[in-house]
């Protein structure tokens, strides 16, 4: 079985190299046979990687521990769902999955361009072969997921013996629904972003005049942007549920690695819109798509190499490997290659890229998108700086720099607020020179609403003692909050007015609110999908602002029967229970210890929370404490988030950490609204009579 997996990878790699040659022939000789061959090669690679992925999945299901990767990330009693998701539990399998997705995307891209944008095909396949060749090279020679299990002395564990042993098991932290689906979503986004890159660079190369190719680029970008975004949110949700520190975002390099391409992809989507509408920003667009692609590779590299100190420590590099064959350096080489290819194409086709900046007014929609995109680039730049500067500090000064929340937040907050400002105005700003009078008029109502929400917010702060105490201590945060209130009021009213106008127009025809809403969306899905996404962004940002500023933390050591009061709620420690510790861990997946905490408000019972600790095979064997399973009582205004930080089952003692996190649910709601908006924006426009 293992052999089939290995050889299909080798063969796929050879085909990718062959593909590079045939596509080069197709480009230079304009030979249709070269193109035909490239197409078939691309499809064959897809079948081969599918085969080897299936082999790996099958090996997991069959508990084939003669494969090292399976041994490391699975065991007999692991639930089937986690045997499946163990496919991306480690680096080797993740890269295989990455490559499989790319080969799938490539076939889809091929199918689309064969019918619509035939001219781009040779160069597109060339770029895709290059990328796939890179990953297949890694998979074949560097991170082969089918490597055999080795004894400590380096000899291969015989297959007969491998049948009698049990695997190591998936990291308990990853045995969670959201973590299980978080990597594939991220990868869908990461990988998907290579298609717009391939298309755009090809269009530039062949000097494609017809803008037809922008449409598939838009679909691929929007889809990747959405999945990457959902992936990031699922990751934060997982961190919130599983890590037990009460937060959802730590500015960890791994998180930043996924944030950066998302930011540039957001900018790219906006300038793509300008290119479609106005033939603007051609060079900026190209810059963004290249940066986004390189950042998605950089993201894969960051999470998988040993260059950064982080809570999630990374795979260490073996010092006996020569420098040019170290994983990090292979990645750097590939990124440089991509960069060089892009720069060369950009220089050779500069006559097309250098479209004059034909913006007619600094207050036009075009200008707003330009400002917004500059802000996105600045945002990306300082995140990049934050992630990368420790590497330079180590090389230059020999010191280990730490860039934590206090590095990022002071920069992220003003930039985000300015993005919100530009976003608010952009929705109403006119195209081109526009009509200044109309523009001014359309600003009136939103401005009034913005001022009202600011005062309303100030009033809420002033009337609530706890909130006021926090913001008065930190004047800067008060200022930021007031700006946020003003912009939220402004923006939301702009969006509501737009929807109102659209619905009103249709309502006169159909006399049914829901139908009118549906027709409005259907007639102009891009416009209204965009507004919906913007609405989600506002909800999200308000959630982030409140939850990060007003978190409260309580730590209490209690015996069964004790209670404590927080936020006017009595938390009573009712009982401490556990599974039978004598149970053989080899027969079950987990052993639990759980506390029952009853909540009372104004003398009335309002709910029960059961924070848990869970032992898995590998936590027991390595003498680690059991994993956290936090309990959360969530509402629109606040989450009660309780962790069983310590316990003593003999003395019936429990140590609890309670976080009161205001408005965290707004993050999840905002994300859902963004998702809905994104889906709307992907629909086809339809005239409705």
């Amino acid at each position, binding site marked *: 079985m293992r052999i089939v997996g290995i050889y299909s990878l080798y063969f796929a790699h050879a085909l990718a190299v062959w593909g590079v040659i045939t596509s080069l022939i197709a480009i230079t000789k304009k030979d249709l046979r070269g193109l035909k061959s490239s197409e078939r090669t691309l499809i064959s690679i897809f079948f081969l990687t599918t085969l080897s992925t299936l082999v790996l999945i099958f090996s997991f299901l069959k508990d084939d521990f003669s494969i090292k990767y399976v041994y490391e990330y699975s065991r007999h009693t692991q639930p089937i769902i986690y045997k499946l998701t163990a496919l991306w539990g480690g680096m080797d399998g993740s890269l295989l999955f990455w490559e499989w997705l790319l080969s799938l995307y490539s076939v889809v891209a091929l199918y689309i361009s064969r019918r619509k944008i035939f001219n781009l095909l040779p160069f597109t396949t060339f770029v895709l072969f290059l990328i796939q060749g890179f990953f297949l090279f890694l998979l074949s020679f560097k991170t082969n997921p089918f490597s055999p299990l080795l004894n400590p002395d380096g000899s291969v564990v015989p297959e007969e013996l491998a049948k009698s042993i049990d695997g190591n098991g998936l990291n308990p932290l990853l045995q969670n629904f959201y973590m299980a689906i978080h990597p594939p979503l991220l990868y869908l986004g990461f990988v998907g972003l290579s298609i717009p890159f391939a298309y755009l660079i090809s269009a530039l190369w062949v000097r494609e005049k017809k803008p037809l190719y922008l449409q598939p680029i838009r679909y691929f970008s929007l889809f990747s942007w959405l999945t990457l975004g959902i992936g990031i949110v699922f990751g934060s949700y997982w961190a919130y549920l599983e890590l037990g520190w009460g937060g959802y975002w730590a500015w960890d390099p791994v998180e930043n690695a996924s944030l950066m391409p998302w930011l540039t992809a957001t900018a790219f989507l906006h300038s793509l819109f300008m290119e479609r509408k106005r033939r603007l920003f051609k060079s900026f667009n190209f810059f963004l798509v290249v940066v986004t692609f390189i950042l998605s590779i950089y993201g894969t590299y960051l999470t998988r190499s040993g260059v950064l100190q982080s*809570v999630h420590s990374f795979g260490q590099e073996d010092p006996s490997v020569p420098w040019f064959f170290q994983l990090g350096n292979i990645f750097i080489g590939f990124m440089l290659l991509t960069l060089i290819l892009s720069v060369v194409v950009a220089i050779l086709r500069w006559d097309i890229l250098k479209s004059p900046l034909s913006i007619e007014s600094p207050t036009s929609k075009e*200008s707003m998108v330009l400002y917004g995109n500059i802000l996105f680039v600045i945002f990306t730049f300082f995140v990049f700086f934050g992630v990368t500067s420790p590497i330079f500090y180590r090389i230059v000064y020999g010191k*280990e720099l730490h860039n934590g929340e206090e590095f990022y937040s002071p920069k992220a907050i003003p930039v985000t607020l300015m993005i919100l400002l530009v976003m608010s105005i952009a929705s109403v700003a006119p195209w081109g020179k526009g009509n200044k009078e109309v523009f001014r008029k359309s600003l009136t109502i939103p401005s009034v609403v913005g001022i009202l929400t600011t005062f309303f917010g100030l009033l809420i702060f002033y009337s609530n003692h706890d909130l006021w105490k926090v913001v008065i201590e930190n004047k800067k945060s008060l200022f930021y909050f007031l700006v946020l209130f003003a912009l939220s009021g402004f923006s939301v009213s702009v969006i509501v007015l737009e929807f109102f106008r659209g619905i009103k127009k249709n309502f006169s025809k159909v006399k049914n609110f829901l139908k009118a809403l549906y027709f409005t969306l259907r007639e102009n899905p891009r416009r209204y999908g965009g507004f919906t996404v913007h609405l989600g962004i506002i909800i999200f940002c308000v959630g982030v602002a409140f939850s990060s500023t007003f978190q409260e933390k309580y730590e209490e050591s209690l015996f069964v029967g004790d209670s404590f009061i927080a936020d006017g709620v009595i938390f009573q420690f009712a009982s401490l229970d556990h599974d039978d510790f004598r149970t053989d861990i080899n027969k079950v997946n987990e052993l639990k210890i759980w506390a029952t905490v009853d909540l009372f408000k104004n003398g009335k019972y309002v709910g029960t929370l059961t924070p848990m600790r869970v032992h898995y095979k590998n936590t027991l064997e390595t003498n680690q404490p059991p994993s956290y399973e936090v309990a959360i009582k969530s509402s629109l205004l606040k989450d009660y988030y309780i962790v069983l930080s310590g316990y003593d089952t003999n003395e019936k*003692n429990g140590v609890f950490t309670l976080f009161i996190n205001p408005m965290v649910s707004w993050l999840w709601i905002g994300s859902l609204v963004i998702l809905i908006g994104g889906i709307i924006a992907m629909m086809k426009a339809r005239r409705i009579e």
Partner: protein
Amino acid sequence: MKVKLIIGLTIAIGSIILFFLIGSGSSVKVFYQTPTDFVKSNFNNGERVRLTGKVEKGSVIIGQDKLDLQFVLIDANEKVKVHYRGTIPEAFAEELEVVADGRQINNIFEAKELIVKCPSKYESKLDNKEVKR
């Protein structure tokens, strides 16, 4: 018209950058240090630092309420006494690599944050110990 446009764009982009610079303020740099570096640099003059080292065997004292922790952080040459109040991290144990974030106050390192360097989110622990690649 062209001149006006350029001035407008410059002001807009300039204010973006200016606001960004003001907003970012002065950020203090925080470094990772080993106990040896830390002692050598005169306890970093009381400045905040992320101290990384191993928890010395037999040095851990946990308070009665399980929210108070004292231990000695070591590397090959030096030792630093660390105090921490709060929830003790899930994976904290003797002889493990930890990061203590805080500063030296009156001959003891007061940690505000304690992070245990777990083997990894992705890599399993046995991987490093028993099975060699």
